[in-house]
């Protein structure tokens, strides 16, 4: 595949970093196959492609985390022989990894300036707070510098990653799905930041599955498919449709499948939650979900949607209120009780709460319902294999090699494994927390279809997503969530996304006013 130089939109200066004919193989997977791209100063260069197309791998080769099997890497016009993160950093290349990579026991500020600490003769100088404050002025994320990263929620950790890449003062920053946990609002803030960096003649590599965002910020788009570069072209020459076609090799006509038929209000809810409070942050949630119904939770980051879901599922200690499932009170029971009754929970953090990364896809997918594939405690391996293969194929996971460890799969495909793990149990109620995080646009559609198919089969779905569009387009009803509490319902079919945001912010304001001090 030939190289197309796509830096035309900017001054057209010599490329800062150039990748020529790079290939990289992992075991049986050709992650990169003769890929060439060049990154010009002052451009925002997007990598797009399906899950597993090789975007992260390419980013990691540029940032020195992986060494390619073959091919050349040129930085500032000179070929580099030895390349690793430190050399990359010294040459002005930094990266935000897709799978967050922070030191949990260090503080926010320590993480941000890790590796670039100011010191005199090896002794740290007390400038950390001041440096952090200066950086914070620029980015305005409002993170507490002295909090341990372990205590932050995912979105805030992602902000730490972003700040860390900025703290390197890099000329090239590879951002691998920097917004996968951020809300629209925060994404906007990042985009302004990117424009600011661009104005300083820095290069941003922007890897994202949000094509709107890609078109909003990028100057050049490189489309990848199956480890190969399809083309690099100025963003102006591309349309959303042309990009999707390049990525998938086919057309994608609709973004969302049709909404399943509305369930009558007379049907008894399978899940009835009243005034639920938990140790971790649910403060009074009341909601109901009927069989065949998709119910959304709409909230800002930190509003406590995850905490409500965890409390319902029994993952956190409940301190008040009630959960009734199928007419039975299950308040305060453990996850295994919920699972055995047919309630499942797909967590937002697939690495920490969802998957056992070192084990195979097969073992992960069957884990929660293993008793169904076993007799007297002994696993019926053939049944297991069939069921898992069917499940991952229905979600189009790639490669469909169920004996490989999950760790080796691309982010989006790991997400599919996570969904498979919970759908394989044919549950009656599915709680989905950010089910499409890191999933490509084609696969997203597959997941949406899977969700609507569930509802059509009579399964109840509780959907949490920071992409409010998802909630609004899929669900029958949606609750607004503020500060761990449910605050009224909206009708998704008639509410535009900005109206939701407006409501969330205004109710949040009144909440603040209501609470003295």
């Amino acid at each position: 595949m030939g190289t197309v130089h796509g830096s035309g939109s900017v001054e057209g200066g010599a490329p800062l970093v150039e990748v020529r004919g790079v290939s990289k193989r992992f075991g049986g997977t050709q992650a990169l196959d003769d890929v060439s791209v060049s990154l010009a100063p002052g451009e925002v260069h997007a990598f797009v492609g399906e899950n597993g197309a090789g975007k992260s791998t390419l980013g990691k080769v540029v940032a020195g985390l992986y060494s390619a099997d073959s091919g050349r890497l040129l930085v500032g016009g000179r070929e580099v022989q030895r390349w690793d993160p430190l050399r990359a950093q010294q040459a002005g290349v930094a990266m935000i990894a897709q799978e967050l990579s922070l030191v949990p026991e260090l503080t926010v500020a320590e993480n941000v300036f890790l590796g670039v600490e100011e010191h005199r003769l090896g002794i740290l100088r007390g400038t950390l707070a001041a440096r952090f404050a200066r950086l914070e002025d620029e980015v305005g994320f409002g993170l507490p510098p002295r909090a341990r990263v372990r205590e932050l929620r995912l979105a805030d950790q992602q902000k730490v990653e972003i700040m860390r890449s900025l703290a390197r003062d890099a000329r090239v920053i590879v951002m691998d799905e920097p917004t996968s946990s951020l809300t629209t609002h925060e994404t906007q803030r990042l985009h302004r930041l990117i424009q600011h960096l661009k104005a300083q003649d820095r290069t941003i590599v922007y890897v994202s599955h949000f094509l709107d965002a890609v078109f909003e910020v990028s100057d050049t788009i490189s489309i990848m498919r199956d480890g190969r570069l399809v083309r690099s072209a100025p963003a102006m020459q591309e349309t959303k449709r042309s990009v999707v076609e390049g990525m998938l090799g086919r057309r994608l006509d609709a973004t969302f499948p049709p909404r399943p038929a509305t369930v009558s209000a007379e049907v008894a809810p399978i899940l009835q939650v009243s005034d639920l409070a938990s140790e971790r942050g649910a403060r009074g949630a009341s909601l109901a979900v009927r069989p065949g119904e998709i119910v959304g939770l709409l909230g800002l980051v930190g509003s406590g949607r995850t905490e409500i879901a965890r409390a319902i599922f029994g993952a956190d200690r409940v301190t008040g209120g009630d959960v009734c499932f199928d007419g039975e009170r299950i308040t305060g029971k453990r996850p295994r009780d919920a699972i055995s009754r047919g309630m499942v929970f797909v967590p937002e953090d697939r690495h920490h709460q969802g998957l056992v990364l070192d084990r195979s896809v097969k073992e992960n997918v069957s884990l929660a319902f293993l008793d169904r594939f076993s007799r007297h405690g002994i696993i019926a391996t053939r049944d297991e294999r069939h069921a898992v293969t069917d499940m991952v194929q229905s979600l189009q996971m790639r490669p469909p090699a169920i004996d490989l460890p999950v760790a080796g799969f691309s982010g989006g495909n790991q997400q599919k494994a996570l969904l498979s793990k919970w759908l394989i149990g044919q549950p009656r109620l599915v709680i989905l927390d950010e089910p499409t995080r890191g999933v490509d646009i084609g696969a997203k559609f597959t997941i949406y279809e899977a969700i609507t198919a569930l509802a059509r089969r009579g399964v109840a779905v509780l959907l949490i997503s920071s992409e409010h569009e998802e909630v609004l387009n899929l669900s029958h009803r949606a609750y607004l969530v503020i500060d761990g509490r449910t605050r009224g319902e909206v009708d998704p079919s008639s509410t535009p996304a900005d109206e939701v945001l407006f409501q969330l912010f205004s109710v949040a304001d009144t909440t603040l006013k209501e609470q003295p001090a």
Partner: protein
Amino acid sequence: MPAHTTPAATRALFFVRDYAVLILLVILLVVLAMASPSFFTFANLMNIANQNVPLAMIAAAGTFVIVSGNFDLSTGAMFAVGSVSAAAIADGTGNPWLGLLAAPVICVALGLVNGVAVTTLRVHSFLATLATSLVFSAIAVMVTGGSLITVTVDGFTDLGRLRVGGVFIAVIVLATFVAVLWFTLQRTLFGRHVFAVGGNADAAELSGIRVAKVRICVFMLSGLAAGLAAAIAVSRISSGQPQAGLGMELEAIAAIILGGTSIYGGVGAVWRSISGVYLIALIGNGFDIMSVNPQLKDLVTGVIILAAVALAAVGNRRR
């Protein structure tokens, strides 16, 4: 940047990485067979198998502990308690089987103590079992007052010394135990849960697995192995003493890790630990039958362990 590697070469590398301990075991077998005519005889190989039955049992069960992300540093002390209890009870009651049965029963109870300590105190098992091991060895000392209990009861030595068709009963017991554990780890619900707990305890909990229960079971299994091992060893030498098993916990852990089971949990296999045990055992046997200065044994063992590790590293060379 490294040159192209063909798929065949890659496969070979992976094979070396995954089976380093087996490869070294075979190499050592061949070298010893060539070096000494007395080595590759049925009698000698049977002896090697037999001598290491106790350690192999503890390592086999220890695999579960390590795979579940834990450590059991108390196996040596449980072994001591098992040894002295078996000897004391057989000696006291005159019933050999009562004594031998007591060891595994008591040690399972001690394993339960470990499991409960680890799960309720929420402390890393390394420290918890270190503490319980002190308590257990003190118990062993108190049972005997510090001295040796010699057992002269008839039939007490059968378990440790008798053979069936040339094969030691102890070896048969080990083979059965290992087969059951192997099957349990690879093919049962419990085995899968052990892997899941070791790989990601949070995810396991959210998948409805009773993590604490799995942990407790794993420690009880380790106790069972220590007790069985003690019964066999005490029957073999027909005496129990509180220093028995000293250092055995570390030997077992070393063999497990040498086999290739990950110290971080989540990855491992029973056959690996058994290979690790016998790799080290072969070195010792070689020294004894070839009459080499025993002061060099440690040196050679250390170098061979490093070689096994280096071999496994070959396949991991590339990032």
